């Protein structure tokens, strides 16, 4: 049974239509991400689940119970805020134990629970410190411990890593994932960082303008996005004009290929289409190199060096559209310059068709 079940959820703020009909089922123990650009409604949706916002229409069920009229302090959810919201006038232990104030536990039991929660996030022994004296990463951990100590059914995380620098963020991503597996609580993460969502989630809902554009596991989302918008938001994708007739697509600059149904996530129909392909699924061949893949020709228009990778923009013969190709910088591999002729190897199965 799903732990969270939303149906037809709408939210208006005055004239602003923040959520435009959200249907969503989230299973117990799942690491679920709401991914989208700012203003897409992902934080509003999280706050609706937490009980900070009422729904204008629709129902929210938590463990099968209708949450209509149930305020945030009576819901089996806890939240990690973007600003962490650590109480600055309390110590670390008082922060973490805040939610236990009314629990039927002895003082000793509470202290033990606080120490256990701190240990869980790697802050054992930090209890006596002032909350103000903590670093960003430590505040993040305190916020986690404070929310997890109440053993909620669902932990809500509102862009919890966006304030951290890159190294620390990567470290916390791994830790959050490990923590989620060990406690087995459903995590719902709001993020605008597609990489973060891909790394951490079991499933991802991509949101645009108050709607869920696609809900899928990370692999499906990346390999078979349902729209150009989703494809461009998650990773990089080049688009070429094409035309479908029966089982075959003709792609400008590449040539002809047969397409399977799964390559048309938005459905297939004969006519003009847009054909997408990821940079790593195309390869530039070295002069004289042979291939049994399909071949296309063009010229390099731009080269961008990333250290481990080089990205090439290639104008294909017979079309105005360009494709981006990423190549690993392996030893002995020649580097092409701007203006060099390019031979591009590709596979029919790598193509994604958009109406």
């Amino acid at each position, binding site marked *: 049974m799903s732990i969270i079940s939303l149906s037809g959820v709408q939210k208006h703020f005055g004239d602003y239509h923040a959520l435009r009909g959200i249907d969503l089922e989230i299973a117990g123990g799942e690491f679920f991400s709401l991914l989208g650009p700012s203003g897409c409604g992902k934080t509003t949706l999280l706050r609706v689940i*937490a009980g*900070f916002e009422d729904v204008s229409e629709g129902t929210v069920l938590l463990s099968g119970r209708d949450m209509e009229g149930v*305020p*945030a*302090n*009576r819901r089996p*959810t*806890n*939240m990690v*805020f*973007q*600003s962490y*919201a650590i*109480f*600055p*006038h309390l110590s670390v232990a008082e922060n973490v134990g*805040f*939610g236990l*104030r*009314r629990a039927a536990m002895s003082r000793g039991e509470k202290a033990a629970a606080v120490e256990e929660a701190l240990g869980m996030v790697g802050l054992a022994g930090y209890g006596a410190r002032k909350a*103000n004296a903590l670093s960003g990463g430590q505040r993040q951990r305190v916020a986690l411990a*404070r*929310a997890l100590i*109440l053993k909620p059914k669902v932990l809500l995380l509102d862009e919890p890593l966006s304030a951290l620098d890159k190294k620390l963020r990567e470290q916390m991503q791994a830790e959050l994932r490990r923590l989620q597996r060990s406690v087995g609580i459903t995590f719902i993460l709001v993020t605008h960082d597609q990489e973060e969502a891909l790394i951490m989630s079991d499933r991802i809902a991509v949101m645009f303008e108050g709607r869920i554009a696609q809900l899928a596991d990370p692999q499906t989302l990346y390999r078979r996005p349902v729209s150009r918008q989703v494809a461009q938001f998650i990773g990089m994708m080049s688009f070429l004009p094409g035309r479908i007739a029966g089982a075959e697509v003709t792609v400008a600059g590449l040539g002809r290929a047969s397409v399977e149904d799964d390559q048309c996530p938005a459905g297939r129909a004969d006519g003009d289409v847009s054909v997408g392909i990821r940079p790593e699924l195309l390869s530039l061949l070295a002069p004289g190199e042979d291939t049994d893949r399909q071949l296309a020709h063009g010229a390099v228009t731009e080269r961008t060096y990333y250290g481990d990778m080089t990205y090439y923009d290639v104008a294909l013969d017979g079309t105005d559209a360009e494709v981006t190709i990423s190549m690993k910088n392996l030893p002995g591999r020649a580097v092409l310059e701007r203006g060099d002729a390019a031979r591009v190897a590709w596979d029919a199965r790598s193509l994604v068709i958009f109406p």
Partner: protein
Amino acid sequence: MTLRVYAILYLVFLYAPIVLLPIFAFNDATVIAFPLSGFTTEWFRAIPETPALIRSVQTSLVVAVSSALLATLLGLCTARAGARYAFPGKRPVTGFIMLPLVLPEIIVAVALLVVLLALGLPLGPWTVVLGHTLLCTPFAVAILGSSFNNFDPALEEASYDLGESRWATFRLVTLPLVMPGIVSSLLISFTISLDEFIIAFFLTGTEPTLPVYLWGQLRFPQKIPVVMALGTILVALSVLLLSVAELFRRRGLARTGAKDTGGFV
């Protein structure tokens, strides 16, 4: 350099009269003039022997404490509403509340007097409290507004999310964090009310507040040194209260970890 000289002269001009107060309060002569004739504490000893003076001090304290409490309570509500919610007419309403800051006191005083008399209400300490609350509320709003603006709304939501009720959240989170602002607001309102003259003069009825009483005493030259002595005590008290208020404001900033962006001292 000229600017420095100018600044020093300016400060001397502003504060020299206040320095004269303690000097003549300890001077052994009823005439306020140099040269000084000798040291005495007689004028301070005369203060408790003047029952009308004691009564006016009591009236002033009651008025000042009541005004400070009322203004701070109103300021707390206004500041929280202003910092947390958007509602139609927010700017005009806020502007209206802050108006007494720039309105000449004499106008407020006359207007209140006319209204009170028209309503047939008797004048007394409570009518002064009314006027002083009006006057102090903008200060309370200004001080508490900065407390609330430095206050992350997610803190209240976090407490609520962790199972506390709205009231418990206010008590456990909001109040401790804005407490320095509340203390500061109370002290400043108290100080403003304590030495306010014009409104008190118009609305005071038969029980004068201290400033009104002092003004009445100026007609009797032999009483002037006693007034000086009392003035000295009041200045010392005001400086003390304002310092304490500022101390609390800074402690509040340190507590919420905010940057210092203003204040009164």
